[in-house]
């Protein structure tokens, strides 16, 4: 079987990039990934672009073909939309295209330009349209934050997860963002600041949420045979799993379990022939603090219900036994929807190759990424090894 590898990465800083449009961010990320290994764009035979809402945010559709055309490329282009899981979804399609032998060397770009759309309620409204059932949740007044709030309340009732434990997710991720040059937020966050921030939907507070931001991230994928022509520095993609669960939160039987994450992980771990105990670090979807807590449980990194205590005990910090979101996660590195899943791969690539600088987890050999849409209606898990 073809071994698929990630042989280069490129990123823009995640920020409110008022001076750049969506095509600029996509083009910069892709060009940096090519230039990092001196690969000519004409060597690419496919491009997969993950993006959530370029039409609504920037009044521009066909964003994948636009980026390709701007770079003078005439290769097959696919734009993938899976809301804030668009990046991982584009990555998976690219991976499958190489794994199947259809393509030899492809690029994945995740990109989102959010801040051309001014006004938080409007921006959140567009996100909500993407991830909630508009006619039977959104129009009734459910928001993404309130959907997660219902999950957080249930987690609190069932397992006793505390406000402080949730806040610790944000505090920890800012500690990591501080040492990530790509991160949108490079400041430390005090527990007290999180706990005293404005309440959004009981019990969730403003500083438990990821913020609006722009950015692009790109990775190149190839069969190992082709990759060797360019470089010896690459990581293996060992497994790609995806699963879905009921769309509407009211249809879920247990609000404390991210079933799609659990199934996607089992699928990916099976392909990679690993168990959770083999994993050295994980990049997960912490769009809201409770999401990270529930995700690490679903991934089997901690037992169900122990996500809060594991975080409180520092087990998910860089020096803990299972470092989570060494990049700073969506909370601190930033969360430009379509770019998230690809940026996670960039982090894992640097960690496994030992080039993550101040964020480096020593001797990291196996890492995973987890990216989900909304509150987990569909989730993707990828396993990587050095």
């Amino acid at each position, binding site marked *: 079987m073809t071994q698929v590898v990630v042989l280069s990465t490129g990123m823009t800083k995640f920020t409110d990039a008022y001076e750049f449009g969506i095509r600029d961010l996509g083009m910069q990320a892709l060009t940096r990934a090519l230039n990092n290994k001196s690969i000519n764009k004409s060597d690419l035979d496919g491009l997969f672009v993950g993006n959530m809402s370029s039409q609504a945010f920037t009044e521009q559709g066909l964003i994948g073909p636009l980026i390709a055309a701007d770079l003078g490329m005439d290769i097959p282009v696919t734009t993938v939309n899976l809301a804030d899981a668009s990046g991982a979804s584009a990555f998976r399609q690219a991976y499958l295209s190489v794994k199947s032998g259809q393509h030899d060397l492809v690029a994945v770009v995740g990109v989102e330009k959010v801040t051309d759309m001014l006004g938080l309620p409007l921006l959140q409204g567009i996100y909500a349209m993407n991830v909630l059932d508009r006619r039977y949740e959104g*129009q009734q007044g459910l*928001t993404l934050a309130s959907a997660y709030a219902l999950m957080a*309340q249930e987690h609190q009732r069932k397992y006793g997860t505390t406000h402080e434990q949730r806040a610790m997710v944000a505090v920890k991720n800012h500690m990591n963002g501080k040492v990530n040059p790509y991160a949108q937020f490079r400041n430390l966050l005090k527990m007290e600041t999180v706990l005293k921030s404005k309440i959004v939907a*009981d019990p969730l507070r403003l500083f438990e949420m990821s913020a609006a931001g722009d950015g692009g991230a790109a990775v190149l994928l190839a069969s190992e045979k082709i990759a060797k022509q360019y470089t010896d520095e690459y990581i293996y993609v060992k497994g790609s799993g995806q699963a879905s669960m009921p769309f509407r939160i009211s249809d879920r039987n247990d609000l404390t379990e991210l079933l799609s994450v659990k199934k996607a992980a089992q699928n990916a771990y099976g392909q990679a022939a690993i168990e959770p105990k083999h994993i050295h670090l994980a990049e997960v979807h912490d769009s809201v603090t409770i999401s990270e807590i529930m995700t690490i449980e679903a991934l089997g990194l901690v037992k169900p219900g122990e996500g809060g205590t594991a975080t409180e005990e520092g087990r998910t910090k860089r020096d803990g036994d299972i470092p989570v979101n060494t990049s700073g996660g969506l909370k601190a590195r930033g969360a430009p929807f379509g770019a998230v899943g690809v940026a996670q791969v960039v982090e894992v690539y640097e960690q496994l190759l030992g080039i993550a600088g101040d964020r480096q987890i020593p001797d990291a050999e196996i890492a995973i990424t987890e990216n989900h849409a909304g509150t987990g209606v569909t989730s993707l898990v990828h396993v990587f090894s050095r």
Partner: protein
Amino acid sequence: MTVPDYWRLKDTRFRLMGVKCAECGHANFPPTVVCPKCGSENLEEYQFPHEGVLTNFTVVYQGNQQYNYQVPYVIGIVELTDGTRLTSQITDIDPEDVKIGMPVEFTLRKYYVEGDEGIIMYGYKFRPKLKEA
């Protein structure tokens, strides 16, 4: 939301009308044109019950777009007496008095107004069940 879209959903929105599968008896909320359980297109009209209990809720302090002026409001999951679950606002009660397990009942309310020229949107909300006279 456009007028045809609003019109299409009116029976469910205004009265909790739906459909029940004539083959397997499943009544899905929201109503679908194909039974999601057995795949049949043979569906009959079905009136969802107007009473149920609140199983989960939260208080929203920051809403999206049209709802931002209504904060704080209560939104939660209601389980109707036939077991159907749906997401709804809970109205006619102070947020601090809302309790899980509380009996609630259907009421038709205004959702929001879409600007100066848009439609005034109405639909179901739930309120604490009124004491029987």
